């Protein structure tokens, strides 16, 4: 009987969260300690998962299966492949850093950490799900932690609006996918929600063409696809730092991943039919997102829009339906997740100390918080696809895939790199260098916990940039499987 590694990873945060809710509210040490313990255990186990995944063997591994509602064909079915293992690792890393960043939360830490952990369970659950009903179960589980965390601990001026907008927008997106998923369930004739079985189900071309957009776009809303992306900047900016990290760093990947797992893998001919649309929208994401980021004066909005831009590359990678494109998309999900978590964490550190996010009012912060500045610079280099960092090893294959599918996309989207470089350098200079405004002269440096988080995230991005094979071999195996489903056309 194999150790149920995936179930343990998924449920440790849940159990820790429930335990935390039982603690008295004043016992901050217990609360924080439990949260950190759970996060540490989770990151450790996800790392072990990463090391234990057998790339040469490939396929779904660590599979656990238990009947849940047999009469409806629902089972508790967990498993990971080459594409989901990096995402599990990503979630572990971001959760861990999120807990560290939130170490000094003053306001109701008990509820804060409990909800944070519930959110983590949801995310892990989706990545590991091999049953379609179960995937939705975990997917929707995230709704209430997200909402409550944004409105309670978010930026006071916009949190109610941002939180509600984000929640409702994502809810309707997921409901639309659910509609599509139900259609798949009934249409397959196999009376099962098992993804592995549904991959082989063989839907008719008309069915696929009709239902692919429904399922794909429902999930892609969470991935931030244009024009359904407007929840992202408002929601991310309104959220407290740790939630912004998880939302942009992991949740958006949940959407993209589900779009891949459910829409592309189960309805491959539908994907081929609609690929042109996704390519176009993804390109708009990349360029439009970068342009809007450039004109923002709020530090956090810059990052929020840059997330929209970078997810565009993931969508382009998917839509190329090619070996390199899908590889790049898989790598970009990981790389961007780490990068944006780093960005939001540093923005949070700056805001906590300077009490403003207005770029004209910031400056010279390199003096005060050098680690944060360096972290942001590294993140910036990643975001503009600078070689030597994980962003390049992710974006390059996406463009290669674009060359195969639609060369125009490659030519237009590459502008995104230049625009990104421009605004990143400008922001770095304005926020971290130059003169320190008088209000900021007393700003303190970041804490040890913050530094550990930054260090971990930077090391990940540099490590992957220098040694892309750390992930690319694994992702490649998952991609091969997807290609085999597509190749059956």
């Amino acid at each position, binding site marked *: 009987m194999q150790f149920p590694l995936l179930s343990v990873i998924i449920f440790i945060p849940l159990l820790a969260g429930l335990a935390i809710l039982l603690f008295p509210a004043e016992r901050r040490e217990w609360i924080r300690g439990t949260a950190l313990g759970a996060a540490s255990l989770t990151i450790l186990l996800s790392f072990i998962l990463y090391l234990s995944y057998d790339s040469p063997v490939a396929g779904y591994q660590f599979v656990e299966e238990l009947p849940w509602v047999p009469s409806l064909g629902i089972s508790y079915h967990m498993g990971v492949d080459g594409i989901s293992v990096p995402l599990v690792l990503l979630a572990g890393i971001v959760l861990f850093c999120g807990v560290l960043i939130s170490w000094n939360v003053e306001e109701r830490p008990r509820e804060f950490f409990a909800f944070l952990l519930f959110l983590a369970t949801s995310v892990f659950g989706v990545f590991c799900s091999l049953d379609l009903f179960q995937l939705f179960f975990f997917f929707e589980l995230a709704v209430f932690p997200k909402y409550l965390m944004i409105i309670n601990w978010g930026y006071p001026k916009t949190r109610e609006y941002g939180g509600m907008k984000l929640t409702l927008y994502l809810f309707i997106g997921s409901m639309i996918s659910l509609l599509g998923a139900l259609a798949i369930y009934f249409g397959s004739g196999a009376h099962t929600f098992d993804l592995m079985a549904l991959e082989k189900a063989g839907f008719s071309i008309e069915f696929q063409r009709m239902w692919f957009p429904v399922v794909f776009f429902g999930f892609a809303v969470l991935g931030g696809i244009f024009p359904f992306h407007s929840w992202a900047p408002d929601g991310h900016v309104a959220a407290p730092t740790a939630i912004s990290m998880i939302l942009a760093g992991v949740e958006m990947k949940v959407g993209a991943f589900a779009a891949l797992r459910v829409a592309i893998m189960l309805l491959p001919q539908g994907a081929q039919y609609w690929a042109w649309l996704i390519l176009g929208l993804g390109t708009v994401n990349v360029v439009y997102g970068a342009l809007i980021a450039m004109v923002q004066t709020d530090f956090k909005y810059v990052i929020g829009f840059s997330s929209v831009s970078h997810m565009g590359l993931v969508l382009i990678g998917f839509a190329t339906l090619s070996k*390199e494109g899908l*590889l790049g998309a898989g790598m970009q999900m990981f790389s961007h997740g780490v990068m944006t978590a780093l960005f939001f964490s540093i923005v949070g550190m700056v805001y906590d100390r300077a009490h403003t996010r207005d770029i004209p009012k910031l400056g010279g912060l390199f003096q005060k918080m050098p680690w944060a500045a360096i972290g942001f610079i590294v993140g910036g*280099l990643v975001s*503009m696809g*600078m*070689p*030597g960092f994980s962003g*390049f*090893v992710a974006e*390059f*294959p996406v*463009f*290669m895939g674009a*060359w*195969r599918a639609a*060369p*125009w996309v*490659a*030519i237009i989207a*590459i*502008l995104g*790199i*230049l625009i990104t*470089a*421009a605004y990143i*350098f*400008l922001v770095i*200079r304005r926020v971290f*260098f130059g003169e320190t405004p008088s209000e900021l002269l007393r700003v303190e440096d970041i804490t040890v916990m913050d530094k550990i988080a930054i260090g971990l995230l930077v090391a990940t991005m540099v490590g992957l940039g220098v040694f*892309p*094979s750390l992930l*690319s*071999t694994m*992702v*490649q195996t998952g991609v091969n499987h997807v290609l085999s489903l597509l190749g059956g056309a």
Partner: protein
Amino acid sequence: MAPYSGHLLTLILFLPTLAALLLLFFPARWASFFRWAALIASLVPFLLTLSLWLQFVPDQTGFQFVEKVDWYAALRSTYVVGVDGISLPMIILTTLLIPLAILASFSIKERVKAFMILFLLLETGMLGVFMTLDLLMFFVFWEVGLVPMYFLIAQWGSSNRNYASLKFILYTMGGSLGLLLAIQMIGVVTGTFDMQTLFQTWPTAKVTFLGLGTPTIKAIAFWAFVVAFAIKVPIWPFHTWLPDAHTEAPTGGSMILAGVLLKLGAYGFLRLVLPLYPVESARYAGILAGLAVAAIILGALAAWGQTDFKRLVAYSSINHMGFVVLGIAAAAWAANLKDTTTAAIAVNGAVLQMFNHGLSAAGMFFLVGVIYERTHTRNLTEYGGLYARLPIYGSILVFTALGSLGLPGLGGFVSEFLVVRGAWPVFSFATGLAMIGLFFTGAYVLKALKQVLHGPVNKHWQGNIAEINLREIVVIAPLMVLMLVIGLWPTFLLDMINRAAMLWY
């Protein structure tokens, strides 16, 4: 011995990075520790390079000291490095100039730790470009070198550094976008990034996209490569980033910018454009030659009109690099005509000019830095009669300036002669014009010397200006020696280059 000799290039390439990482752990207050540590750390690659040079076999075709390891297997890109007679001089130049530039930067007072670390990272970036034999890794190192330079200019530069550094990096990155796209396309079409394979397969590969035929696509890709490299060299009219960047950079930065970074562009032409696009290079060689001449003449004229000493030297770089490009263009044209002798001569000239200009430009920028530290002005009109006060400095300046001018007996003459000799048969008109450019070169050099050293002594500097010190002499001396040696006995370098060129054709 095997780990050492089997991985000599990797050692040279990554020792600076390793040193940089180690330096991270020391407290920033120990300024002089960082200076000396960086200097010693940068001397090691230089010594290793000398050893490499001694073991290099000039008569062998192909690349030597090749090391190959899978890097990004999923994209079929490998970490593969090797040297031949073209890249080895560049590596020597780089590993020589970095320690000298570090030594020159001993006068930097603020944030020495960050400065030195950036410098060492910069070295790896540039060496990587020269050593790599994989197209994707070429791009990686190409871009990687930009970031340390950006920060060096932005943090330690002069008054207009923000504008200059941003322009530098955005201009260069923008230019490389085309290169990036072309490399991606090559990878998709041929399925590999290995240069040695591509040299065989790409010139004859059939490639169609968007309904356009092979010649069109190849021409577009050719220009994409050319633009990226042209910006770096720089070739007129893509040169406008250079004067600002060179002028605003700190002394050590300018030395490396002019001494090595510009060569990356020219190297790109030699290593990639000519072998991969022989047909297109020949077809458009005329245009390149024309642009090269424009650079020579206009660069010289612009230099003559400067009142800022450093800016003058910057424009002189444009002027000198023009010769490199002229040589490359001539080689492309001649090779197409199967005139291998001319082509070889032109390539010889180009590569030697790259080396020489590296030495002289670094020297000139250094000397400008020396005088700036003492006078805190770069305005030529504010100098005057300094020879009387600083005779040693004056002599050194004269020597270096004449070396940059191409005085026979010093290195510059040999390389320029070779370029002209190679270009004359194929681009006679252009070469003729280039001679006029040489005339203006002489003019601006002498004018600068006159304004700085001769004439009545400016009362301002009476009695409170220090002579050039020992450290500074140590910096400039190797450059001067090399210039002299190359001028008198070029063979020691030329031989290696020549055989490579001959074997090439």
